[in-house]
């Protein structure tokens, strides 16, 4: 078997983050500060950087990638994904550790890097191609392929500043896709362009991988990661948390994104928007018999319980509960104001709110987003997404109601009543 394509050993990158900036409330203050800044800058030049002004964007990261592997890189914003890609593509140097790569590396960190608006499409293909590391004769050879992939034949000699953003991206991706490096680094390029073009790009990447090239793919789209990658690594706060099969890593990542703890309690530091007037402490799911549950049977009515810790009196409040898929797609929303419901008056103290929801969720995994709104001041008091994860089963509680196929498309099942077949014309 061929040799390892990428070996990353104890990689670390430290950034100097700027010293805390003073805020200026008036023009005069900003002006004097600007006048004094040369002196401050000169003074800073001589002093060593204090430790709290540095940040390890990445630390102790080690992993290996074999040729032909498509490795997904997952993590929330600020986890170190972009830093890792920048180090791999040699845009910036590591502070410690090392990377060993076999073969040419091409990076698509941002398509169309170096495109010049005044130059024509043809000219930009050459400029962009050489920027990405291609030789001129190489571009000559692939030129027709690039143009037909991009589908902009007619506008080849038009300055790209007259292109639509879609055409621009298509041309840029076409150049990058024909770079044919042994290692390809792709970062969210698929976020742009229309659906058809995205499919084309994903197809091209799959093709590249089948040719035995190595791909590192960063995306926030879990479906895209799952469909392209065989393996994934999970980064968090600059550390490598996990390196495993893509399914496992994606699941771990999605679970870690949940605000909730095992018992449904929600820590104060969960990802939330809060104005201090009240806090959601706990979310629970109950069946008709007031039993706590984490999965609901097909067609089962359920009840969501919200424990709020109210700090200030809220004269008029509204609560909204949303049901979303794990990918973050909202599929249903209920609100305390529905059907002309009266606003809630919430006095300081701990309250429990219960809402019974009558809906048949189709089989799948869902999570609850909870939102408390102060109507008197028109402000968000507390907003937490992904508070409570539950499973909708493909099986009714009693009886035989279930789907006979594995996957059901859609999220909710409206009530429907079917009439017996009526004969329209009887064939003789």
């Amino acid at each position, binding site marked *: 078997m061929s040799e390892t394509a990428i070996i990353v050993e104890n990689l670390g990158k430290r950034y100097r983050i700027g010293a805390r900036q003073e805020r200026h409330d008036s023009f005069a203050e900003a002006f004097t500060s600007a006048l004094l800044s040369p002196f401050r800058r000169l003074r800073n030049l001589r002093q060593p950087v204090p430790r709290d002004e540095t940040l390890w964007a990445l630390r102790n990261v080690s992993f290996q990638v074999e040729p032909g592997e498509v490795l997904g890189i997952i993590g929330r914003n600020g986890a170190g994904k972009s830093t890792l890609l920048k180090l791999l593509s040699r845009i910036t*140097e590591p502070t410690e550790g090392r990377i060993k790569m076999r073969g040419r590396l091409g990076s698509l960190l*941002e398509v169309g890097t170096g495109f010049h608006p005044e130059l024509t499409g043809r000219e930009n293909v050459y400029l962009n191609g050489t920027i990405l590391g291609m030789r001129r004769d190489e571009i000559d050879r692939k030129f027709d392929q690039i143009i037909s992939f991009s589908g902009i034949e007619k506008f080849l000699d038009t300055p790209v500043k007259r292109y639509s953003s879609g055409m621009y991206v298509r041309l840029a991706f076409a150049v990058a896709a024909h770079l044919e490096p042994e290692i390809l680094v792709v970062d969210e390029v698929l976020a742009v362009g229309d659906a058809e073009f995205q499919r084309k790009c994903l197809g091209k990447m799959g093709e590249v991988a089948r040719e035995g090239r190595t791909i590192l793919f960063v995306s926030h789209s879990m479906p895209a990661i799952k469909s392209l990658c065989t393996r994934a690594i999970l980064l968090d706060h600059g550390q490598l948390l996990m390196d495993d099969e893509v399914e496992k890593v994606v699941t771990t990542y999605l679970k870690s994104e949940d605000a909730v703890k095992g018992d449904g309690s929600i820590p104060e530091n969960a990802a939330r928007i809060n104005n201090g007037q009240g806090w959601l402490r706990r979310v629970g799911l109950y069946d008709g018999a007031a039993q706590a549950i984490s999965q609901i049977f097909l067609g089962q009515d359920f009840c969501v319980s919200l424990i709020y810790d109210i700090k200030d009196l809220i004269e008029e409040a509204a609560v909204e509960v949303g049901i979303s898929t794990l990918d973050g797609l909202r599929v249903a929303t209920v609100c305390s104001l529905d059907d002309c419901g009266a606003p809630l008056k919430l006095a300081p103290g701990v309250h429990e709110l219960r809402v019974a929801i009558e809906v048949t969720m189709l089989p799948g995994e869902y999570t609850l987003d909870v939102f408390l709104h102060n109507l008197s001041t028109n402000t968000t008091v507390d907003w937490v997404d992904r508070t409570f994860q539950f499973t909708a089963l493909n099986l009714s509680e009693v009886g035989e109601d279930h789907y006979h196929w594995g996957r059901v498309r859609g999220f909710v099942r409206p009530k429907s009543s079917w009439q017996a077949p009526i004969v329209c014309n009887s064939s003789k």
Partner: protein
Amino acid sequence: MDTSHQRALPTITVEPTSGFAAINLRELWHYRDLLFFLVWRDISVRYKQTVLGAVWVVLQPFLTMVIFTFIFGRLANMPSEGAPYPIFFFSALVPWQYFSSTLNNSANSLVNNANLISKVYFPRLLIPLSSLFPTLVDWAISFLVMLGLLFFYRFGLTWNALWLPAFLLLLMTTVLGVGLWFSALNIHYRDVRYVVPFITQFGMFVSPVVYPSSVLPERWRAVYAANPMVGVIEGFRWALLGKAALPGREIFISTAVALLLLLGGLFYFRRAERHFADIV
């Protein structure tokens, strides 16, 4: 992929480096096409959306020559070593204009290409290097104007003119040396943006552009030549006008200083380069 291809794959190691890094000539050579397209981009974009276009290239030095001839040649009666003042002045303006516009471009080159630097890897040296060439077109055009002036004043070229390529090379070396320093410094300190226009304006008067070096006392000439543009301009003048004797000592000193600037610039640039993408 067949195994022979596998074996041929280069291995790249990315590691923190410290101190001075050597220049990777092989890599620069691999990226020579990029140098070409960067130069070509700048040339083709340059005069787009201007009405007079390339006419500016002729007009700018010509008008400067007319004004300076009037002020320094007529009003101040500056000596011109036996040549008519217009061609005396223009023979210095040919290298000086290249110096000032190229230095300005090259000092701002990295900052202006920040989007490239923070997105793709390529030898960063190509950026200031590429800024040497677009202005060469202007240089060539003003050189033609110079030939026209020589013809107008019935001033024939001598064999000295064969030395022109050498002085052009010295000129480019000087600009590159200074440009490397400034472009790298500009990443950290945008003060460079204010320093460079000052140098190109003030520098004209500490170089023999409007006056000949011979107006200086003999003992100061060697110090004066530590400004590498002194050697360049005296060289151009000698090659184009061919009157005075070759100012060999000045040219030697200037060349030595230019080479030192270039070497120092290369080292500083390589040292600073690893943080470009983090700061720019």
